[in-house]
């Protein structure tokens, strides 16, 4: 202790202190931000990663580069984690059909095993969000809480009834009905396309589980008031009343005023 206090006026003391401060801050930040990435429960064998690498080089490397280090046409995939691959490939968004503002959902190109292998390969490149556990996908959370979280965090893009919405310049937030719980969770932790990342720090796994519960429940509930007209709100209601409502009434007026003779 004495040695330390004697050296406190050393010319390099300030630099050492700064270095220490940065290391502590950086270290804590790294721990905090990788909280949700730390629970890699899905186990990948070495063989999976090897097979995944082959698939990657044949199908993905054109844009994402050899070793997934990224090119001008596609970002680096080091550290995106298995969850990102499972979402993008598992919903058919990747491989991308064409360069567009956003990759839309389309028929999947790889089977489950191949998707698993690709995930294994990308996960092996660096730590990232892993494929979620079944315990957060069971849809047994608090739907009402999930609804509140959804309205505060998601509804501005995805619409309060999860019917989707427009973003700028051709980008869009897709409708969420028919999306599997796993993919919803993965989207939240990886922030695909134009979606922001909802890390476990700002939306804990419990909250994500509630949101999934809410979405699955409103999907299962259906529409209590009859056909939902796309859940698009007053625009589709207005179109319906002008075309169908007024249309039927005009047909009746023509019938009423036509001569019977």
């Amino acid at each position: 202790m004495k040695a330390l206090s004697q050296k406190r006026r050393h010319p390099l003391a300030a630099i050492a202190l700064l270095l220490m401060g940065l290391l502590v801050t950086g270290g804590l930040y790294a721990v905090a931000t990788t909280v949700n990435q730390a629970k890699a429960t899905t186990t990948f064998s070495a063989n999976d990663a090897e097979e995944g690498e082959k698939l990657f080089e044949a199908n993905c490397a054109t844009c994402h580069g050899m070793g997934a280090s990224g090119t001008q046409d596609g970002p680096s995939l080091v550290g995106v984690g298995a969850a990102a691959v499972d979402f993008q490939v598992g919903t058919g968004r990747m491989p991308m059909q064409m360069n567009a503002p956003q990759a839309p959902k389309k028929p999947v190109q790889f089977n489950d095993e191949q998707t698993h292998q690709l995930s294994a390969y990308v996960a092996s490149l660096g730590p990232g969000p892993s494929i979620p556990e079944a315990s957060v996908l069971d849809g047994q959370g608090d739907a009402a809480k999930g609804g509140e979280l959804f309205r505060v965090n998601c509804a501005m893009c995805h619409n309060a009834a999860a019917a989707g919405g427009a973003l700028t310049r051709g980008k869009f937030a897709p409708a969420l009905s028919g999306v599997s719980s796993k993919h919803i969770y993965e989207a939240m932790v990886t922030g695909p396309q134009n979606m922001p990342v909802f890390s476990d720090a700002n939306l804990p796994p419990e909250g994500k589980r509630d949101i999934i519960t809410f979405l699955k429940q409103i999907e299962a509930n259906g529409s209590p008031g009859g056909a939902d007209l796309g859940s698009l709100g007053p625009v589709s209601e207005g179109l319906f009343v002008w075309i169908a409502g007024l249309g039927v009434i005009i047909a009746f007026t023509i019938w009423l005023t036509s001569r019977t003779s």
Partner: protein
Amino acid sequence: MSATSTPNAPTFVAKTKGGRITNFVDERVGGSGILREFGRKVFPDHWSFMFGEVALYSFVILLLSGTFLTFFFDPSMAETHYEGSYTPLKNVEMSVAYSSSLDISFDVRGGLFMRQVHHWSALLFVASVSVHMLRVFFTGAFRKPREMNWVVGGVLLILSMAAGFTGYSLPDDLLSGNGLRIIDGVIKSIPVVGTYISFFLFGGEFPGTVIIGRLYMLHILLVPALILLMIVLHLFMVVVHKHTQYPGPGRNDGNVVGYPLGPVYAAKAGGFFFIVFGVIALMAGFFTINPIWNYGPYDPSPVSAGTQPDWYIGFVDGALRLMPGTIGDWSVEQVWFGQVFSFNVLLPALVPAGIIFTVLFTYPWIERWITKDNREHHVLDRPRNAPTRTAIGMAGFVWYCVMWAAAGSDLIATHFHVSLNDVTYWLRALFFVGPVIAFIVTKRVALALQRKDREIALHGRETGRIVRLPHGEFIEVHAPLDEYKRYKLVGFESPSPLPAEPNAHGVVDKKEKRRALLSKWFFEDRVAPATPAELAAAHGHHGEHEAIESGESQKTLSH
């Protein structure tokens, strides 16, 4: 004739009990006289005359279903936790108003159906009022003596929008709250006094705790009472003016050709009420409207994608969406003398609606001033026979529709897979260019249709039968029209421009010159109806079509 009758003995004694009761009532209220008068009122029959009736019936349905809803709705903004049967909202903190709206939807027997009846009929009410006004405009039914009734109709349109908007805001769900927030923003954008008005209206900072109760009172008391008053005025004037009629043989400005109200027409109208009710009930039974449970309770922080007002406020929302925040480097929002002037909100919210309603209310007088037409008109114009008016109407209609479409710009973008920005840019261009194109195209189409009418009146219908004459010429046989059909094609007025006339002092003043210019613009392009002489010439000289061919230049046809 009997001399034994005393002065106060009834002159008529009914044979049955029912008859005696009827007679008792009739002697006191004079019902049979009223019935005789109204039962004999003649109404011309045409499908386009029935939209006003649809509006009236929707309003009756609104009153009935609305009364049901008031039994269960509580307009309080006090906080509560939802305890009803819709699980995705269980225990969620919300206002009593929203909670009671949810109870109407899920826990009151028939409540959801009645809510949907109420909302669908509200949409249909404003829609039928609008279509009715379009019909009146395009057929020139607003001309003397009906100008004031046209104004009453315009007031009814505004009142129906007010009724709709106040009702839309009542459930206190996220969607209606977002709508109220936009109204609050528009009010606050009014320079200097805006914030004061907003605080007055909301009883403090938005959203406050009083607005739902205040809107509720307007929605169930003041606005419907005013609508009812205006409907009474409107129908009273219809009785005074009698109904207009489309041109046809035997119809003129001095008569009404149609069916008497009683009994057939009254039965038809009564039946039509139930048809309208049936259509609304079917819509309410099978199609969701305003699923408030989807939107959740109002909270000023979230704004859902796809937040739109009901269709009749859509054009204002669209104008707001179209307005840029900066033009080049110039910010539309300015700070002058320490005051913020939010022209980016104020202009789109008030100017287009202001223009639409000003033109709507003043149009009968504008046209009367231009045409100097002070005669009474009870025979309608076919839209093609008033090309400039029809073109003006279509220009306004297209302008409205551009703003209307802009309110759904996000849905256009997602459903047609185009960029939201591009949709906005196109609609901005159409906002200015659309009405001009619509005016030109409509006028040309109307003139072309008039020319076609003239052609058919003169030469009859093409039969498609080709005949070879002895000297080798081929002609197509035209079948002449019967008199009734021809009347429709030739029986209209086509005024020529009215040149400037000197006033009482013998001076042609500037205003009169301007009027003459407008009159020229209004009537310059015209296709005159075929005259009897032309008809005689056409029918006298079969084969010599060229002599009376309607020329390309319509201006030469005017005399």
